[in-house]
Each structure stands twice: as structure tokens, then as C-alpha cells.
């Protein structure tokens, strides 16, 4: 597999500009975090190829994303949740895991069958999570059914993924692909790898006995609503065609703090996608041979995906329902007058007239 590095793409002036701007924006954030506590942890239900499980989701604080330190993705504010010094020791990471187990025990009578670990970086990058820690975490969760770990394609190989497969876990690597369109991933998201790298990572995961879950981003900055919808439909279909990629999590962009998206949002140049757009993509790709789910964060708020304010909860419920059942009929049961506005936006909005409606 090719090994794209930040340095290679930094030769491009678009990426230089994005990185320079993002470094500047992020530098305004001076908060630091306790390295012995995870960024976030919560319990939920998730649809997997083996059915629906209770899930324990862990956002591990590993010192933040290395790419984000160079500048990083235009919409991602998770790097803000970093620790001073930039790296987190083995003991501290294990303390974070213990914190999560305690959270689970306090809030649920049963153990979650599915564990999901995200780092806002690459869990499989040994500069972020040492091999020792990775193996200890695999041991800790060896009695569960499934595990999802987040990583950039670069770090997916038999050895890293094998640690989880070998303890008997159904393992998935979550890859923040964002879009199958390289041009959009590079120029709008400022993420450095190519779709071909994702395909290679899927192949490597499969060879290790694991699967891949692709994370897509609906409506990065600079795209019109219609372009964003088209980009997602195409991306779901292309992911579905990749061996080893059995699930796509298609998530609408929200406005996170200390990001370029937030700068645009403040100056009236960005609106998160409509929930109708999410529904449209899920409905139209329901026949693909892949599980497609979506978890709109901050739905109904100005900074999150939203419709008119009247129907947001209704449409959000339909999306969550679709996540579990994969039945496009759920969308036939929601309607609102604001669909006409969404139709007009889809028809009329251009990248030079963003955003046409609030």
C-alpha cells in the first residue's frame, strides 16, 4: 500500500493554506485536559453485521491527532481535547479505560457486547497508543463480542489488527474516510490520504480477519447542499463495493469549536446539512449491500444538522430507527412543510451562494 504522509501533500498550496489557517485557529484554544480521564464515554445501541448490540463508546484521550498538529481537518475540533505535552503514558491510558469500565458498570446492568474506541487520531498508530497498551486493552475486552477501533488507513496491518482478532473479538477498524471523492477529501476536508489507501487498508484488515467500518462526512465546507448529497450517495456506493467494508457511518458535519468550519459559520458562510439530506442519502442507498447508519450530532441546533425547527426531532427519530432496521419505509412517515424549502435549496444553492437558507 502507498504510504502517503502529511509531508507529501503539504507540497500542495491548498493544503499549506488549510494547515496554516487551522494551526492559527487551534492556537486560540488554550484548554488542557486530565490525561487520566477519557474525552468522552457513553452507552448506546448499534447495528452490526451480527445484529444489534449494546455498545460502549470510548473517546480515548491519546494526546490528540498528529495530523491536527500540522493543521488538520477543516471541521474537526477534537484535537482541542488534547493533553499538555502531547503524549499520554501507558498507565494513564489504562486509567482512562478503567474510568470507562466504571461508567459502564454504573449505568448498565449488563456488559456491552460491542466496544468502540476512538481517539480522534489513530488508535493503531503506535506513536499514539503504544503496542503494550493496545495489547492490554485487547486483553481487557477479550470477553466481549465485537470491537471497533479507529485508525487512519496507514496503520492498518496484520500485526496491529491481529491483537484484537487473536483474543477472539470480531474486529472492525473504523476509518474516517469522510468521502470517497479524493478531491473533496483533500480540498474541502484537508485530509491527506486517497480512496486507494482506504481500499488497501480494507484489504489488510480483511487479511487479518477483521472488517472495516467507513465513516463519511456529509457536507464539508465549500459544497452546496446538492453537491453534498451527491457526494454522499456516490461515497456510500463506492464503499459498499469495497471488500471488507461492511458498514458505513454517514454523519452530517457539525460546527465544532476552533475549526475553519466555525470561522465560516460565524461569518455566515456555512450551514450544517439538512436532516432531509441525511434521510435522502439513507433512503436512496438502502438497496446497497452494506449497513448504512447515521448519528446526527447536535441535531436541531444551529451548529448541528437541522431542518426548520419543527420537525427536527421527528426526522432524527426516523434516522435512528433506520440505523437499527435499515428500512427506508421509516422516512415515508415523516413530512413537514420545510421539505419545500429543502427542495428549493437543493435546486438553487451553489458553492457561490452558500448558504441559501439558515
Amino acid at each position, binding site marked *: 500500500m502507498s504510504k502517503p504522509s502529511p509531508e507529501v501533500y503539504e507540497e500542495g498550496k491548498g493544503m499549506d493554506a488549510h494547515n496554516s489557517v487551522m494551526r492559527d485557529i487551534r492556537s486560540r484554544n488554550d484548554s488542557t485536559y486530565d490525561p487520566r480521564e477519557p474525552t468522552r464515554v457513553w452507552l448506546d445501541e448499534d447495528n452490526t453485521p451480527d445484529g444489534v448490540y449494546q455498545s460502549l463508546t470510548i473517546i480515548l484521550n491519546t494526546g490528540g491527532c498528529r495530523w491536527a498538529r500540522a493543521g488538520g481537518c477543516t471541521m474537526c475540533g477534537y484535537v482541542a481535547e488534547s493533553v499538555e505535552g502531547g503524549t499520554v503514558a501507558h498507565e494513564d491510558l489504562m486509567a482512562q479505560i478503567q474510568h470507562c469500565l466504571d461508567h459502564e458498570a454504573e449505568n448498565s446492568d449488563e456488559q456491552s457486547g460491542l466496544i468502540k474506541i476512538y481517539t480522534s487520531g489513530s488508535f493503531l498508530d503506535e506513536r499514539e497508543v503504544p503496542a503494550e497498551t493496545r495489547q492490554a486493552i485487547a486483553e481487557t475486552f477479550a470477553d466481549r463480542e465485537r470491537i471497533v477501533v479507529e485508525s487512519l488507513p496507514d496503520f492498518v496491518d496484520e500485526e496491529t489488527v491481529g491483537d484484537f482478532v487473536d483474543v477472539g473479538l470480531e474486529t472492525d477498524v473504523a476509518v474516517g474516510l469522510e468521502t470517497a471523492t479524493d478531491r473533496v477529501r483533500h480540498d474541502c476536508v484537508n485530509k491527506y490520504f486517497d480512496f486507494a489507501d482506504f481500499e488497501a487498508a480494507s484489504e489488510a484488515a480483511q487479511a487479518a480477519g477483521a472488517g472495516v467500518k467507513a465513516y463519511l462526512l456529509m457536507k464539508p465546507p*465549500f459544497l452546496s447542499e446538492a453537491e453534498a448529497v451527491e457526494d454522499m450517495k456516490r461515497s456510500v456506493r463506492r464503499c459498499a463495493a469495497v471488500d471488507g467494508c461492511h458498514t458505513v457511518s454517514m454523519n452530517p458535519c457539525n460546527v465544532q469549536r476552533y475549526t475553519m468550519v466555525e470561522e465560516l459559520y460565524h461569518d*455566515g458562510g456555512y450551514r450544517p446539512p439538512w436532516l432531509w439530506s441525511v434521510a435522502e442519502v439513507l433512503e436512496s442507498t438502502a438497496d446497497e449491500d452494506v449497513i448504512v447508519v447515521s448519528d446526527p450530532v447536535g441535531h436541531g441546533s444551529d451548529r448541528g444538522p437541522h431542518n426548520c425547527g419543527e420537525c427536527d426531532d421527528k426526522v432524527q427519530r426516523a434516522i435512528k430507527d433506520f440505523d437499527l432496521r435499515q428500512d427506508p419505509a421509516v422516512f415515508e412517515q415523516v413530512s413537514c412543510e420545510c421539505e419545500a424549502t429543502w427542495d428549493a435549496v437543493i435546486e438553487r444553492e451553489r458553492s457561490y451562494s452558500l448558504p*441559501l*437558507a439558515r
Partner: protein
Amino acid sequence: MTDYFEVHERDSAARVGELRLVDSVTTPALVDDVDTETPGNCRHVLDDAGSRWSTERDAPDGDESLLTVLPHRGLPAGTPDEVAEAFAVDYPDVTFPSAAVISPDTATDHSSDAYVLAGAPGYVGHASAFVDAVTTVRERIPADTALYLPGVATPRNVATLVYAGVDLVDPDRAVVRGTEGRYLTTDEAYFLEDLDELPCACPACQQPREEFDRQDCVEHNVNALAAELRRVRRRIRDGRLRDYIEGQARQDNWLTATFRRLDQQYSYLEERTPLIRRADLSAASDDSLRRVEIQRFAERVTDRYVPRFDDRPLVLVPCSARKPYSDSQSHKQYHDAIKWRAHVVSMTSPIGVVPQELELTYPAQHYDSVVTGNWTATEIEFVSRVLERYLEGTDYPEIIAHVPGEGYRDICERVADSLGQEFTYTVTDHPTTADSLGNLAAELEGWDRYPKREREHNTIRAVADYQFGEGAGDELFDDLSTQGRYPQLRADDADGEQLAALAQQYGVLSLTTVGARRWVESDVPTKTVEIEPFVPHGSVLAPGITDASDDIRVGDDVVIQGDAAFGVGRAQMSGPEMQSSTRGIAVQMRHVDEQ
């Protein structure tokens, strides 16, 4: 090189132009995508070749009947400069009607006929961001190109958008608001459900209120927008858009803030404001004082005008509603008392002070103000400042203030105090009472009358100073003889050769080629248009111009010089517009000598 757009009429930054497609479109216009169904009256002439953010785009083929938006990377409001520059698109030089998408950071001449201001929805609603974006872009793109603001126009804001310099808008915002149940008028964005009757006579509104739904609302909104644009085009042609804006912009505070901020961009507006207009100027608010026409008049009276009568007493009189002042009943009565023994200067809001020689000069005989007798603090401040500056440059032996109590007297006392000069007040009760006029006549006892010749010569010279610049009156008209009867005066030299005529309607001079040659030979900077070697008859078009003075304004007399011709005419464009334009009438010729 602009091939498909031409400006026909100008009213400050606003223009009536023509998008020269197979079926031409008169701007400012409501334009829409060629494939979009929109109820109401839009011109479906836009063809978007697509965004390069999502995919690489082929070069479009173009179409003479459409305005093709070249493949672009739209930059929304808030895009950091560095990112804007890094992703700037190079546009091909095409042979079909085309528009280039730009933002304030990337705007430059791309040889397109029109320019699309990306991110407009982020600027509209915020006066400073909007004024900054539009003036920056307008200054960076050639004058004879159309500026298109996408996704923002409403019936309420479109007049102000056009006033700022926008030529093309679309119905997108009006449509979207309609789908949201917002009923747009020139004064409001009503919630449809709050309206128990529809305040409109457009076809969409000709139905029972209870049957009127959001789809009808879309249609009404587009109709209202189209109708407002028709009104705006009429206003531009009449030279009266500003009068409308001062009232219309009151319907939304950001619009008022916008035209006030534009007034602060004085050089942007001054460059585009004509020297003279046929139309009247209505001064109905303190905002009128900030108009370029008013500021320019005050500036020229205090900086350029030379007082040639200040060897005799000055009589300050109040203005009259009838113009020119000398035609009014009140001024005729003052004259009967003064009898050419003193210099008469009228005090007025909003103009400031008008020396008798300039009473015809735009806008002195064209303005009409709201008179209640109560002066605002701003008016008092403005007129005081102008009067004080005027008096600083003069040396009258005596100043007689023949003015009524309200406002005028306050100003005189304030200025007298500030300058440490003594004013004699001659009015008791009202300026036209027998007592007052008697006082005035008595005060001038002992002064002789100046002859008609002196009055006429000083008028010609004063207008020359005002129009051509400091010193012009003496340099161009040193050996002067005047013919005709005021206000129809002709200026000849001592040998009877005509130099100029006073244009009664505007109070400016129309030079002959002999007069123009004097201007060229004088030390007064000449407003010159240099042309290719041809002999212009009728008019000079922009492509024939090789250079033009920066300070030429619409309505200025200009000298035309080329290897084949020397002439004089009246500018139809500003100097900078002549320099950057490749289409349109630049000068209306008056006289030309072949050489």
C-alpha cells in the same frame, strides 16, 4: 475585454446596463438558471458550468444566448485569505458571454462580462461587511462589467444592493423565503399566517386569502422583487435613486446603515456621482447632507470659488423655495433694497452657502428641502461650518445678515463669534417686512452700484472656478466680453470669438474649441481624454480612448485630444471608467477641429 455588457446610464454607483445576449437583458436584472422553473418574471439566462470543489470540470462550450458561469471554486463568507488565495481559479479567456466567480480577496480582471460575488449571503445583512465586499470588488473589476450578487435579493433590499453597485440578482432568496411562509414586500418580511389581507396587487395575490398558500407566496415574492427592480431602473434613469434610497432603506436598519456607510466611502461614490443632473434633488433628512452632490458643492464653494465682490458689503439672505433664487418673490424684494450695491450670498440647508454667481449651478437650483422652520443640530452645524470656511477666504468690509430668527440667526451669531467678526442684523420680525427691507437699504447707503458687465463677468469666472478648478476664472477668461441676457450668457474673448456658453439648466459652462485650447494652454489642470487618431463626431466610444484624466466625472466638460482631432465634449463616464472600459459611450462631443 468586455463584449457582452454595456453600461447605458449611471446614477452614482448604480447603473442601467445591457447584457448583450441573443435577447438582450436590461440591468439591473432578475436572472435565473436556464433550467430552473421559477414563477414570475425572471430572465432564465444563467448557465452554471459547475463547482470545481466537487470535481474537475470541462471547459464549457458557451452559448450566445446565455451567461455561462465559468467553472469555479466559490468561497463562502469567512473564508480565510490564505485559503482564498491558494484555491484561486484561473479563468480562461473565452469568446462567449461569461461570468467569473470571485470574492473580495480574489477579485481581479478576468476578461469576463460579469462577476459573481461568492459568499454574498454572508455579507448581506451586515452593513460594514457588505459595503466592504461590494466596494472592494467593484474597484477591482472593470467598470463595464456586471456584478452579480447571488442568493440575496429581496423586494426590500434590492434597491440598496443596486445603489451600492450591483447589476444582477436572482430570485433564490425570494423563493426560499416564500417556501418558509414569509411574504416579502418592499417594507417587511411578513409571516404569511399573520396577514389577514394581502397588501399587493400582483397576479398571485388575486385570490381569496384562505386559498393563498406558500407556493403562491413564492410567486408573489418573485413578482414583488421584479416590480421593485422595475422601479429601481426607472429611478436610475431619472437620476433619482438616492432620493428613493433615503426613504426605502428606512424599512430595515441594516439598509440604512449600508447607505450611510457608503457615504463614508466618499471617494467610491464621488468618482461615480455626476457633476450635473437634470433631475431635482430632494433633501428630506440629515442624510441628505452627506450626499456627494452637497458635499462637493460646499467643498468647491469654499476651496475653489474666488470672491470677486468682496470689496463691497456682503448680504447674507435666506434661501427661497423657488429656484433660481433670483426668480423668487422674496429675493426680488431683497434685490429692490440692495440694488446691485452688495454681494448676495444665500444661506441654505442642505447646500450651505450659495454666492449669487452660482445660483444656477447644480445642485443650487435643483434641490428642494423640507422646510418647517426648525433646524436640526446637524443642519446648523453643517451650514455654520460652510459659512465659516467661506468667510475665512474673503475680505468684506461689512457683513450684513438679513436673515430671520430661526436657525439662520443662530448660525450667523455662532460664526460671527467664532471668527470674531461683527455682523449687522437688519431683520425685524421677517426679512420681507417693510422695516426689514428699509433697514437693509439704509445699511447700504453710500455704496455705488456695480455695473451689469461686472456681474456677468464675475458669474462666468465664478462658474469657471467651480467647474474647472482654482484659477480657471482668471486664466481662461482674462479678456472677457459677455453677450446675451442672464441667465443665457455667452462668454467671448475681446475679439468677439466665443469661448463658452453658460448652460442655464445646470449652471455650468459649455466650452468651444477656442475655450478648450485656452484651458489646455493655461496652468489649470485640464481634464483630457486622449483618443486614437480619428475624428469623433457625435460621440467618443470607450475603445477609442487611450487615456483619460482620473478626475473626470460624468457631466464634466472634457478636452479630446488625438493625432487627428482636437475637440471638446461632455463626459458620460468618469475618467477611471473610461480607462477600464472597452464598451460604451464615453464622451458626447460638442465641437471638434480636424488637425
